[in-house]
């Protein structure tokens, strides 16, 4: 009897430590999700429901609408497309340029390696506001205002430090025997990279690519400065402009709908690639 009873009693009694843990978990999840959920709720409320005091937390059917989303219309899809294009291209460029550099810094003992690494690390700490003035001059001089090159090149650059650091730490963990035996078989370095190393690198490239895509998607100050044609704007700028469009009557509903739509691609990325994102962040920061 005793032997049967004792496990059940310990199961029903939650230890204070566990209780504290669960309170912490609930607070943490609430803190992270509350603003997002609040935007989601606002985006589906009618204007009347949005401006009702006290605030409505559980709207009835009459207080719900999809009008804010419909009102955003095709224009918003274009912004999504713009953001996707710029982020995707700059991510590809970043990997194409960054991966060879990372390999070189991991394996081929070039002179000045540590200086280059140190510079890359320092550069990753620069706030973009220090760069936009000089870049603006270049953009004007070359005449690439309102051309996505003016975004793609800076986005590639701001993501290169992270790309190089993450991929370098990946290359360092690869077993060197494989490369050595490939060289024995007569591959030169570039051919060996293409045929032996690249296929093994794909998971690491995906990890890095997700991070660079997110950073490019979220970038604000360059997009605000170098692109002035409304139809070419990227998501962060386009959404911010909805917010600043009218001084007297701020369109809360459309803003909420726009924030939800503009963040959905990123929420999906996080849901799909949580583990890789965590790996990337820690490898980029800690192993540098």
């Amino acid at each position, binding site marked *: 009897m005793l032997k049967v009873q004792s496990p059940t009693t310990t199961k029903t009694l939650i230890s204070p430590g566990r209780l504290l*843990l*669960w309170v*912490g*978990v609930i607070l*943490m*999840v609430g803190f*992270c*999700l509350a*603003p997002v959920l609040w935007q989601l709720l*606002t985006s589906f409320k009618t204007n009347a429901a*949005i*401006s009702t*005091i*006290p605030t409505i937390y559980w709207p009835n059917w009459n207080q719900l609408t999809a009008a804010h989303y419909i009102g955003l219309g095709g224009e918003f899809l274009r912004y999504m497309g713009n953001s996707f294009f710029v982020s995707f291209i700059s991510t590809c460029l970043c990997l194409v340029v960054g991966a*060879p*550099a990372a*390999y*070189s810094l991991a394996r*081929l*003992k*070039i002179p000045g390696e540590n200086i280059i690494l140190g510079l890359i690390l320092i*550069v990753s*700490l*620069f*706030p*973009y*506001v*220090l*760069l936009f*003035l*000089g*870049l603006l*001059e270049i953009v004007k001089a070359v005449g690439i205002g309102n051309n996505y090159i003016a975004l793609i090149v800076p986005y590639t*650059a701001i993501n*290169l430090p992270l790309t*190089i650091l993450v991929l370098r730490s990946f290359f360092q963990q690869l077993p060197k025997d494989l490369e050595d035996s490939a060289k024995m078989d007569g591959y030169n*370095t570039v051919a060996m990279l293409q045929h032996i190393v690249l296929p093994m690198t794909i998971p690491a490239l995906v990890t890095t690519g997700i991070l660079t895509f997110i950073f490019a*998607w*979220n970038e*604000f*100050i360059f997009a605000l400065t170098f692109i002035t044609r409304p139809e070419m704007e990227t*998501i*962060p700028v386009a*959404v*911010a402009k*909805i*917010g600043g469009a009218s001084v007297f009557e701020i369109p*809360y509903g459309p*803003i*909420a709908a726009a924030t939800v739509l*503009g*963040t959905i691609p*990123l*929420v999906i*990325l*996080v849901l799909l690639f949580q583990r890789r994102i*965590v790996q990337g*962040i820690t490898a980029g*920061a*800690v192993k540098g």
Partner: protein
Amino acid sequence: MTQDTLRQRDQRTGWFLVIPALLILLLVFAYPILRAFWLSLFTQNLGTQLQAEFTGLTNYGRLVGDSRFWQSLGNTTIFTVLSIIVELVIGLAFALILNQTFRGRGLVRTITLIPWALPTAVMGLAWAWIFNDQFGVVNDLLLRLGILETGITWLGEPTRAMFALIFADVWKTTPFIAILLLAGLQSIPKDLYEAHAIDGASPVQSFWQITLPLIAPQILIALLFRFAQSFGIFDLVQVMTGGGPAGATETVSIYIYAMVRRYLDFGYGAALVVVTFLILVVAIALTAFLLARARINVSGER
């Protein structure tokens, strides 16, 4: 001989592989900074019809007496220090929670990543709505809890606007710190705690005597990254308050941006860039120095 030529060929390939990346980095990072140093010696604004005229250190003289600059520097410092302290404390709490085993931990970890991944400019609007004077949910909750009797102005009042900014920044960046610190926590061997417990130490004592010293490097790295980002904060402030009310939340980057884009004062804007850059470099060098020492200490203790 063949060893040597092989090595030389490797080095040549190495440079060949690294140079495209270096060129892009030089173009986007080094050139603008160097250019700012040069441009800061010129007056180039509407007064000179946007022509650059060499005026030496005039811009720096102007900067010394520019109370708006010093105010923005003060605002930036307050914002940076307070947000980083709060982020470190909450981030450490997050990391400690995520380091436990519990059902649904994977999902919880995913959820905590969401604030980090969302665009700051976009979520800044969400926060402005949350802190709205009339219909904001913060006012409503405080009224329901009986903490307030009437709704108050948040973004229109200097101290509360700063509070709202810090709150939004903490929300956005705590996950990043939590991830870094969690990596630190996971690298601590479990038997250290067991041995310490056998010695009669309480969990709280182990936290102070084992956990904190051993994750000191991660704390410093998080500090370094967060300091640099926070010191250059632009999008959140631009979207939430625009630097207002009356410059009470104007950070250095907002001021620089306005100087260049609104007042078209490129020379003085460049001087502001240079000074901000130098402040950052000094601060980063200090942290890096501490970091190097912390690493040595940790390995020494182990």
